[in-house]
């Protein structure tokens, strides 16, 4: 595996044209879904808590969704092989581990607080 290489791979030549369009279109609900979630959760927290500090469980849960959005975003250059190499793989590993940690911690604290 190279250290890092950049390529222009036409996403419309992924497979057949219909399959390529299907694959390209599927990224819209995935990335927009997670991105919208991060956006609405921070709006929710600002509206609900106002000037009060946001509790840890909600802060971690929001961070998990934010890193989840990054996770979904980085899968695009990996899938289309626009970026190939150890750098992108190491970044992917880092994002997955940080996102997973925040997700577990946030949801654990939510469930613990209201026991």
């Amino acid at each position: 595996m190279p250290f890092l290489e950049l390529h222009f791979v036409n996403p419309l030549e992924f497979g057949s044209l219909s399959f390529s369009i299907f694959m390209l279109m599927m990224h819209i609900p995935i990335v927009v879904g997670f991105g919208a979630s991060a956006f609405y959760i921070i709006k929710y927290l600002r509206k609900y808590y106002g000037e009060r500090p946001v509790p840890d469980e909600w802060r971690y849960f929001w961070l998990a969704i934010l890193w989840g959005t990054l996770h979904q975003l980085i899968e695009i250059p990996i899938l289309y092989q626009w970026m190939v190499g150890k750098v992108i793989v190491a970044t992917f590993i880092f994002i997955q581990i940080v996102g997973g940690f925040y997700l577990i911690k946030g949801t654990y604290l939510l469930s613990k607080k209201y026991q």
Partner: protein
Amino acid sequence: MNSKEAFKKIEKLKYFTIVPANINSSIFGIDSFSIETFMGQSLGSLKWAVLFSLIFSVLSFLVATFFIIRYTREFYAKRTIPSSWQFILWGIFATAIAEIGDFLGFYEWPKVGFVETNFLLVIPHVIGGILIGYGSYLLYKEIKV
């Protein structure tokens, strides 16, 4: 030539590091599954880190599903759980399935099976993204301050 030999040959070609999808994939691609490669590239020293992170990703969404069920049951007790949390819960669960698809897809590339591509990767990912996004929108809309 088996797939491992083919990958080694590709590695030797300095300016040909892209491994295009194999359009002649079968129903299941488990025959091409190898933890030595990621998107068709030899992983080398990153092998165990990638394996750990992909498994951790699946587990984190599954564990989150469990904790969200516990949270909604405890917090809402006998009241009806609002749609927002139901959408978020199912979105997190669908994404856990999609992460299994990611796990298989990255290791099976370029011969990812039809089942893995569609039923474990694409469809759960799309459903998960929509449900999480819509659930969070409802969470914001439902709030009364």
